[in-house]
């Protein structure tokens, strides 16, 4: 399809099918039926096999027309892409449409208290009893799990093979008695995550994704989708321009729920954008020692931007290959956030003790100081990033592994 043809087709579809008075779900059902909800997906599964360039045109028209698209934020995207890549025909038909319409919210159930950096060390137990799998264990860092209808779950189905071989990947119904979700409050007071307790929770054998024992291989798909998301940057999507109508109201609510866990994310990045105005407002701009630290920060932030642009350009030139430079950018973000927190502390002086809405920048500075520690942990710690950089970018030799052999025999947390 030519790009101009696409434009015309999308416009025509919107003219015919869209009305602001539709319910959000009803409108999206039309989108799905017509193949405009996920045009990059295969024709066989609700899509049109479009190239990135073609998809861009579709998005442009949607944006220009001020029309709502399919649900795609947060963990549901991870679930959808993974099911698309590894699911059976039946699974794709069962789950994908309702993800696109937003009828089903999803969450990710990978991390465990005992396995953080070492995701493949998961020890949630999956035991088969006939046509049903029984799950027991605890998951953690599960964004939006309290809103989720389903979860993508990695659990150990075989304890007698090496750790990467004993995992299986399941699609679990979160609305059942065996699944308990508890919000997990962070040190900055927000509760962006949950803990999920699985106690004899049940998964139909039909909801095993891929084959038994393929869990780790499938999880790496999910993780690489997640990393691409990080590289692209995440954060509150700007709310759609104000047009009254049921579909927009429902969409605004959906976005509010989706974005709620991320409101403090700018603060965890250190708010370097607030430094200059704070320095001017407090007079700290006249302190030569603080000026040095500000300059160090600005060097970092500008270089990070320049470097990210370059990486993006290289990626385009290299035909969208995912380069491992993402870890460098992530490590850089940690350095920047720490330096920004340091500079904010110097600028505020004793005032840095104050918190709450009446403190500096309506509390954003205080929230920054106690949010920055997250940036070097979430999404893979700095330590993990450095290993990746050393081994994959610099080609330095791996360490001898201490976790080979049957999982049952490997040292792990209790």
């Amino acid at each position: 399809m030519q790009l101009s043809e696409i434009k015309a087709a999308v416009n025509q579809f919107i003219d015919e099918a869209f009305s602001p008075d539709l319910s959000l779900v009803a409108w999206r059902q039309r989108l799905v039926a017509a193949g405009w909800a996920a045009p990059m997906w295969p024709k066989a599964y609700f899509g049109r096999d479009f190239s990135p360039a073609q998809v861009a045109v579709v998005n442009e028209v949607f944006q220009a027309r001020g029309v709502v698209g399919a649900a795609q934020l947060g963990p549901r995207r991870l679930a959808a892409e993974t099911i698309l890549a590894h699911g059976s025909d039946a699974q794709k038909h069962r789950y994908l449409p309702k993800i696109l319409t937003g009828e089903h919210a999803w969450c990710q159930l990978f991390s465990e208290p005992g396995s953080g950096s070492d995701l493949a060390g998961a020890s949630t137990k999956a035991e088969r009893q006939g046509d049903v799998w029984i799950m027991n264990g605890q998951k953690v860092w599960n964004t939006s799990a309290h809103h989720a209808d389903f979860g993508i779950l990695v659990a150990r189905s075989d304890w007698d093979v090496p750790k990467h071989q004993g995992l299986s990947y399941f699609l679990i119904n979160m609305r059942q008695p065996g699944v308990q979700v508890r919000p997990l409050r962070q040190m900055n007071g927000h509760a962006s995550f949950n803990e999920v307790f699985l106690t004899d929770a049940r998964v139909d054998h039909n909801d095993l994704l891929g084959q038994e024992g393929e869990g780790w291989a499938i999880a790496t798909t999910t993780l690489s989708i997640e990393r691409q998301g990080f590289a692209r940057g995440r954060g509150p999507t700007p709310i759609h321009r104000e047009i009254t109508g049921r579909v927009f109201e429902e969409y605004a609510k959906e976005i509010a729920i989706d974005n709620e866990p991320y409101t403090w994310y700018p603060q965890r990045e250190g708010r370097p954008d607030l430094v200059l105005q704070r320095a001017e407002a407090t007079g700290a701009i006249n302190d030569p020692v603080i000026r040095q630290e500000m300059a160090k920060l600005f060097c970092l932030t500008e270089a990070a931007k320049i470097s990210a642009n370059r990486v993006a350009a290289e990626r385009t030139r290299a035909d969208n290959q995912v380069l491992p430079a993402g870890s460098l950018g992530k490590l850089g973000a940690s350095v920047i956030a720490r330096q920004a927190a340091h500079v904010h502390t110097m600028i505020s002086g004793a005032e840095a003790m104050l918190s709450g809405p009446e403190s500096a920048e309506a509390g954003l500075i205080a929230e920054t100081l106690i949010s920055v520690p997250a940036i070097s942990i979430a999404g893979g710690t700095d330590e993990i990033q450095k290993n990746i950089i050393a081994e994959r970018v610099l080609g330095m030799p791996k360490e001898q592994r201490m976790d080979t052999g049957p999982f049952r025999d490997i040292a792990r947390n209790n």
Partner: protein
Amino acid sequence: MQTLYTDDQNQFRSVVSRFLEAHATTSQARELQETASGFDQAVWHQMSGELGLVGTHLPEAYGGFGFGMIELGIVLEEMGRRLYCGPFFSSAVLSGLAVAELADEANKIELLPKIASGEERVALVLDDLNQVEGIGHQLMISDQGLLSGTAPMVIDGLSAQRLLVIAGSATGLGLYQVDKGAQGLSITPRVSVDQTRKLAEVVFVDTATQFVGRVSPEALNRFWDLASVALSHEMIGGAERLLEDTIAYTKLRVQFGRPIGSVQAIKHRCADLLLTLEFAKAATQHVSFSLAAGEEEKHHPSMVKAMVSDCYRDIAIAAIQLRGGIGFTWENDTHLWFRRAKCSEVLLGTAGYHRERMIQSLGGQDAA
């Protein structure tokens, strides 16, 4: 001058430690930080009564225990280790030192016994917590003898039974006291990053005061020195505890089939932090030994606060990082120390301020 703690001093530490082990747990801290006063009356009474800790460093002649900075440092280190919540730092340390160093004789006789016995909890109102040079510019005594101005952050200002104020006037700086019920006085609690140490804004509008003593620049600097050293001891206690706990965690935490503490990158970070801590701790304790012996060097108090500010913060950052996600949770206690570290870092002057002050004391003329 002593180089190590004496057996008596080590025994004193054990006594303090045992008491706090029982009466200053993090679960208590978590409860107390939700209250307005931020402390436990019963523990305070026991601490001041039975143990007499509140008067540790105050002269015997005024009802104190007659120990000096060494024993005060021991008490504060043990409190810092456990994040003790209560008016010890505000009343015993800040107000106690202010009266001992700045009050005239009659007022010492009146005030010190009350402070030393813990009978009265007194807050010291300073209009600048950043730099000693800034004190007495916002809080001013008028020609009519009335106090006006704002102190934006007063430790335990709300819960204190009496206020001491350092204020400026046409004739120089002075130390004054103000009744909690005085006219024109308003006290508003402020939210602190570290809720285990309560802050309040204190505003005076033509408030009547009672003169306590004349404050010379030299005496004010000495007060600031002593307060900075005292705070440094508290911080060293916190930093040491946090590093110990963190290392213990790395020995237990298994990832990839081995304790993370066996990994060289983590070992080296801990070794670097231990070096920082050892230097900061040795220097802090040395300054108290030298103060006790009357052999202190002028630049040492600022040297110590500068080192300790950086050290505690760096250890607090590592303490969270090495715990990974769990270290960033509310449930985990690490952030309580992290918050204390962040606030103590800037209280009574940042590291940068104290480094500049140290160079000035060394004879490098003022850069400004």
